[in-house]
């Protein structure tokens, strides 16, 4: 009678726990990732305040103005004057005016009252206060006439 040799099975690792953990990790990173904060520009170092709170209700009509300095890789400022960053463009205050007109015209065309539109200003902590006032004044000029403003700050930890 012939005996079959018992085949040596390859040492098999149980992958199940690893896959479980890896899926947990993926879920964690997916949930924590926010893709909607694209308008937040890293060139702007916001001021910090403990009372800055994210709005309780997401604003329906809002547009963001990033007001900061161009910086090199070490974080040193490249120019004395701040710029407004819109997408890849950088504009001076004067160059912004036609853009604001367009934006205002856009909201009028789609029939949104300018009272319901919030201009969110993300200005760098070391921008001169007078320039921020100038920016706000420009948003209120005749022909642009935005009325609601929100000044953004980073929520500082409570001591």
């Amino acid at each position, binding site marked *: *009678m012939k005996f079959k040799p018992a085949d040596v099975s390859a040492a098999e690792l149980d*992958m199940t726990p*690893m*896959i479980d953990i*890896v*899926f947990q*990790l*993926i879920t964690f*990173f*997916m949930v*924590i*990732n*926010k*893709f909607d*904060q694209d308008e*937040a520009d890293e060139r702007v170092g*916001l*001021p*910090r*305040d*403990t*009372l*800055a*709170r*994210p*709005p*309780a209700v997401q604003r329906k009509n809002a547009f963001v103005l990033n007001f900061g300095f161009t910086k090199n890789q070490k974080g040193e400022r490249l120019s004395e004057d701040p710029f407004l960053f819109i997408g890849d463009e950088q504009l001076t205050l004067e160059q912004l005016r036609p853009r604001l007109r367009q934006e205002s015209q856009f909201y009028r065309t789609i029939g949104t009252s300018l009272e319901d539109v919030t201009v*969110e200003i*993300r*200005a*760098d*902590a*070391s*921008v*001169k*206060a*007078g320039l*921020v*006032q*100038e920016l*706000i*004044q420009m948003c*209120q000029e005749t022909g642009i006439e935005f009325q*609601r*403003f*929100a*000044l*953004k*700050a*980073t*929520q500082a930890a*409570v001591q």
Partner: protein
Amino acid sequence: MKLKSRTPSKIMLDMTPMIDVVFQLMIFFMCTLKVLEPEGDFDISMPLGAPSASTVNDAELPPFKVRMQADASGALQTLSFNGQSLGAGDQAFARLNSEVFRAITALQAIGKEQQEKQEVEIDPDYNLDYRHVINAIGACSGRLGPNGVPVRYISRIKFAPRREPR
């Protein structure tokens, strides 16, 4: 002779491609992760700019005036509330916070709605760093309560007409 009945062998799935893809996905999500600090605003209404007829009628009392003077480098030199100097530095904003609290406590004695109507007018020097303006707005808008819930003081904050650069 006894014949062994053949046991059906377990179907083995090859997990390798799945694990490959899963790792790729994990690396993608790890790399796109942006660590962002939570940011927000102050939930205030800002009736700004030239005083329109409505703001004059709404506020029967003159606005609280917060004047901020800067030195040449843009740092805060003096902070004053209704003409009363509160010094400079972080303590100045703490003092401003308690001054505003005192002022609105007095207002509440007149009537609850007075507090809602009251405005604060912030008047910074042209070259003052913007961070101090935000701190002043924070100090006027309220304080943090014991369990992290903000207590609101004033929700109408506006800027005075812009000062010219010196």
